[in-house]
């Protein structure tokens, strides 16, 4: 069982152009900012949006191929969809909601009960969706989608509508249910924690394009966009490398490894040191800047600095007070060349 996606679609201001493949029984997280086209990608796979160009193939079955004039309507695709707002049918009971897909596909209805038991909602079988809590509705939506045993399961921000307390519990439950399912799973999320918890592989989608794909560690270790850098909490620039020097917007950083041409450069905020006077020591990169903002995270603080090369430094709360950083003090910024990570763009 595998999924091959080459999806091109123009929808309003969104220009979707995605290529990706999923291996049999892989759990894929699609991570990206709002408006990146994550939900549209799921809708394309479910058949709710026909493609302009490209080709979708699931287990050798063509789902959509505009060039060949082939389009399998949503009701004939072996695809389950868990919507962000669940979309339970308000006029049906919980049990009837789960039975809906089974009846539509001509499968035995007894499975609905089994699924309700499995998600622990057996006693709410006769309740109306309006009477359910967010977490319960989420479980019903999951049971409804899984009951028909789809070969591809799509989950759109499955935990986004829940409060923090139930989210942690539901995440564990969801991980468990997803593990029992044998098909390919695609989870859309904008939460990196969720992506890391639920998925084998993360695909970063931005402005309709796949920017990065790999394990959570791979992606955060080598961000290729502002969005991922912010998620990982590192400083990211794009620049021109010449041996051990990288030019970034007029500034220059010294690195240890030699590179040539277009590169990405990252520096961990905690590797950035700040001084009142010009330091005279080993750091190869020293320049003067000014603090323009401080965000506190417990005893640590993230200081945004401008001048030379804009950078974020992580220091202790005490250091912020000592150097008068909150008041916008002028400081010397130092980064050891060994802390400058360079990789090709």
């Amino acid at each position, binding site marked *: 069982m595998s999924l091959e996606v080459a999806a091109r679609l123009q929808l309003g201001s969104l220009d979707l152009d995605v290529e990706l493949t999923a291996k049999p029984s892989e759990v894929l997280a699609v991570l990206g900012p709002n408006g990146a086209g994550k939900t549209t990608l799921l809708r394309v796979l479910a*058949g*709710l949006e026909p493609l302009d160009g490209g080709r979708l193939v699931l287990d050798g079955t063509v789902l959509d191929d505009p060039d060949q004039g082939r389009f399998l309507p*949503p*009701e004939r695709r072996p695809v389950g969809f868990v919507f962000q707002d669940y*979309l339970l*049918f308000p006029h049906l009971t919980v049990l009837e909601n789960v039975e809906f897909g089974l009846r539509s596909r001509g499968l035995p209805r007894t499975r609905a009960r089994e699924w309700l038991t499995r998600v622990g909602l057996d006693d709410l079988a006769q309740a109306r969706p309006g009477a359910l809590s967010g977490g319960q509705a989420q479980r019903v939506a999951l049971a409804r989608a899984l009951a028909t045993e789809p070969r591809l399961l799509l989950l759109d921000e499955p935990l986004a509508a829940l409060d923090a307390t139930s989210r942690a519990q539901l995440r564990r439950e969801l991980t468990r249910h997803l593990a029992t399912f044998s098909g390919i799973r695609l989870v859309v999320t904008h939460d990196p924690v969720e992506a890391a918890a639920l998925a084998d592989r993360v695909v970063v989608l931005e402005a309709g394009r796949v920017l990065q794909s790999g394990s959570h560690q791979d992606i955060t270790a080598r961000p290729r966009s502002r969005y991922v850098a912010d998620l990982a909490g590192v400083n990211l620039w794009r620049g021109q490398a010449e041996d051990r020097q990288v030019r970034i917007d007029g500034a220059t950083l010294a690195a240890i490894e030699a590179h040539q041409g277009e590169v990405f450069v990252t520096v961990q905020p905690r590797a950035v040191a700040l001084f009142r006077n010009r330091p005279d020591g080993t750091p190869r990169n020293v320049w003067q800047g000014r603090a323009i903002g401080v965000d506190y995270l417990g005893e640590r603080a993230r200081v945004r600095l401008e001048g030379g090369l804009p950078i974020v430094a992580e220091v202790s709360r005490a250091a912020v007070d000592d150097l008068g950083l909150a008041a916008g003090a002028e400081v010397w910024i130092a980064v050891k060349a060994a802390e400058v990570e360079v990789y090709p763009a």
Partner: protein
Amino acid sequence: MRASASARPRRERPPLGLALAGGLGAALFALPLLGLAVKAPWKDALRELGSPEGLEALRLSLVCSLSATVLALLLGVPLAWVQARVEFPGRSLLRALTTLPMVLPPVVGGVALLLAFGREGLLGRYLFDAFGIRLPFTTAGVILAEAFVAMPFLVITVEAGLRSMNRRLEEAARTLGAGRWRVLTRVTLPLVAPSIFSGALLSWSRALGEFGATITFAGNFPGRTQTLPLAVYLLLETRPEAAVMLSLVLVAISLAVLVGLRDRYLAAR
């Protein structure tokens, strides 16, 4: 010192001007009904109610208005669906056309029906020549006239229901394996059922009170086309007290249905 919290009124009073205007509005509806009730010849009530012409008109009114409602449902729900869901050139024109009978004087509607379905009418000519079907001045004609005037209320209400429902529920049904027909019967129609119900109720009320189009298109034949409103109008000339009693019957039926059904099914929403 008194606790100020206890002095706080539990409910806010409505603004005086608004309450006054609302009261006047209510009086506008209540006074004519009061007139009917006060001036009614209650002594002769039973006799007037049991009069054959009164009963006949009442029976005909119920049969025709209910048939017109069924006709409006059968044609109006699909029409509302087309207007709400299908994009085609001239859609706004069609929409205007289907609501036209609401603003058209019913008499004009009756004339228009005659020109279309009459013996020499656009379609009526062929209906008669080919099938021997004659609509004007028949009970079927009454039903057609009432449906013509009443259906816009159903179409408007159901179309609004279809437009305001969450269409993504239909998409969810598709992803669960339901084809378009199953989505329509199992998701769309049940979800707009309250709109269909209130539209049918409005249509029925309008059909029951229909006068102008009916008398123009179907005439005024007792037992065949003379509905309650027509009987009231005619009796006003000869036996006003009977007219008043029949009017009260009309009011009582309408009120009972509107209070009983409308509030029960619509207020809860």
